[in-house]
């Protein structure tokens, strides 16, 4: 189970990376209008 010494710290790093990526997505405005994007699928034109 020695691999846990690598995997657990790695999971922490990955979660922190996800948070940073999400922050970037948010600040670049990708999530500003999520409801509208959901509606758009239902729009024919």
């Amino acid at each position, binding site marked *: 189970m020695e691999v846990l010494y690598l995997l657990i710290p790695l999971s*922490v790093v990955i*979660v922190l990376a996800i948070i940073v990526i999400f922050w970037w997505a948010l600040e670049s405005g990708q999530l*500003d209008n999520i409801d509208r994007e959901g509606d758009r699928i239902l729009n024919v034109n």
Partner: protein
Amino acid sequence: MDSYSNERPKGPLKVVDDFLVLDDPVEQQAFTEMVDVDGQAYAHSVLMVQGMYCAACADTVEGALCDLPGVVKAEVHAGTRRLIVRWDPARVRMSHLARQVGATGYRLLPVKEALSISNRLAEGRKVLWRLFVAGICMMQVMMYAWPAYITEPGDIPPDIDHLLRWASWILSLPVLIFASGPFFSSAWRDLKHGRIGMDTPVSIGIIVTFVASSLATFDRSGAWGHEVWFDSLTMFVFFLMGGRYLEYKSRARTAGALDDLINRLPEVCDRLKPDGTYEPVSVRRLVVGDTVRIHAGQAFPGDGVLLSKRVTVDEALLTGESHPITKHTGSALIAGSFNIASPVDMRIEKLGADTRFAQIVALMEKASTEKPRLAILADRVAAPFLALVLLAALGAFLYWWQIDHSRAFAVAVSVLIVTCPCALSLATPAAMLASAGALAKRGVLVRRLQAFESLAHVNTVVFDKTGTLTLDSVVVAGMQLRSGVQAETALSLAAALAQASLHPASKAIVKAAREGWSGQPVPLADWQARFDCSDVQEHAGQGMSARIAGHGQVKLGSAVFCGVAVAADEQGTSPRVYLADDAGWLATFELDEGLRPDAREAVEALKAMGIETWLLSGDRAGAAQRIAHQVGVDKLVAEAGPEQKLQEVAALQAAGRLVAMVGDGLNDGPVLARANTSFALGTAAPLAQAHADFVIQGGRVTDVVETLTQARKTLIIVKQNLIWAALYNFVSVPLALAGFMPPWLAGLGMAISSFWVIGNALRLNKMKKS
């Protein structure tokens, strides 16, 4: 001055703006109007308050303004975060007021479309950011905590256990730093005020849990015990942030609907230049006395006088008048109503805030601010309970400190976690959210969750007529024909003329032709093939004429226009349209407001539930009476303007009745806001929707009955939930105080009680399908 503002509590924002732009008269025009009170001129401003989270923030903002010299009245509407302030421009400047509010940690912004949208975006990002950080960290911390739950003590090697705790600690930090901000700032503000709010025990719980768990992580043999509760901490914050997110979404919708209304007035229109030509100008630049040209389908930009010979207007939104009105030279035109015939010229007499349109909007803003602020009341009732919780936790800590240092922390945290008002505060919203979800599947949108409570107690339902009990458009209700003429022939002949016109009567005839009189649809192409129309003309306010081979000059319109003699008993009843050709009268079409097919059923169902039904209409007595008779409402008030409607509802409320208002038009807006709870039918104006608690999208009146039934069920579930949550606290708090309940059991108890409450609420999701 500085020392004064330093003493004031700080809100969630650090406001350093100088707000001088608010003193610019041109900018002020957008959010301020002048009112005359006892011969003195006051400014009346509506502003948006940024940084507000709860009803208690409203108190802080009002408190900052009320005592200032020159401020007559300041009212904050917590739901829409609008501030309405009446102030004396001679004694104080707007920028000074804004700076005072800024010192308490809130930012005043003019209610202006572009600005409020970018603010809403920034706020939405913040809310989403907090929810996401809490969510992703919670999931991962739960993964680290999982092994400890499923193994016996000692099964996990100590170094792996330690590694898991360290990982949990690191991922709890973002939750504490990024996601928990609103709780801390709100608790801090309450603390500065010397109050205890809902967020105070939450904040203390978060801090104590984190500190105790951190100490246990770094020093396993220390006096602080060796338990960690990072999983409880992150899960707890995530659930609370989820609630905040839903709250934000519903608030943003309300604000958005109001902004839509502001944009409803036309932006550009054609102004007559001295040389006789027209130039397109911004509506903002129009001045009183301008002559403008209004095209078909356009709204009038201001109140004014008609210069052209004749115009047909649709005022249904403003007056409730169901039929289009024909006006002649010199008649008054109302801002916000629509020109539905040919282009006309008008002279502007009133603009912007002076117009009737703006007055109705103002009336409504006022009505919604005067609503009882139940949220603050709830906060006040909760305060003693929360204070008791804190005292109990402190008492337990001090008591156990004397006996056993390491247990003192555990007991205090147990008390804080176990009494965490989670189940208690989830009890109501969980049930209401579940109901709202079930209703949404039926096409009923719930805009204000608390409305379920008032709806369940409602004993009077007041309907508006036009567009609520009746359809928006007129329909062909009857036909009289020259002997030897087929109904189909007359209808398609009339439709051949009518399809060139926008008039509601024309639309009704085309619709009737398309659907067929005796159930046989007539394809559109057939009319053109059968009747060779030429020289089609619309005579404004009179009718249509055309040359059709085989019939000669065909006319469709009023009796006079068609040259038809009308019997005296025919006048004053429902409107009629006549059809004539070279041989004289050919057919008469009787028009009627189409009653919604389920209106009668809905009213009868309400009566069966013991609810009194009223019809409150702005339309003429005759038309209102006919509808009232058809659907069978208990009481009728006709020819009521927005002010009178408001008075009628206020009178009902004064008599102890709880009123639900069902409306659609702009003139219902104030009443919708005033009534205990309100419905807007889907085709309603954005303004009416903005102030209605429930929006029925399908246009079915029976949905009012369904929503009412659902609201009553919801209240029963809420009561069960509250009783359960109270029982749980009643049993678990003494156990925790006595030290029989370790923190993990307290956490489990809290989770189970919350799940029980949510599970019970989810039963509301199963709603019978229509």
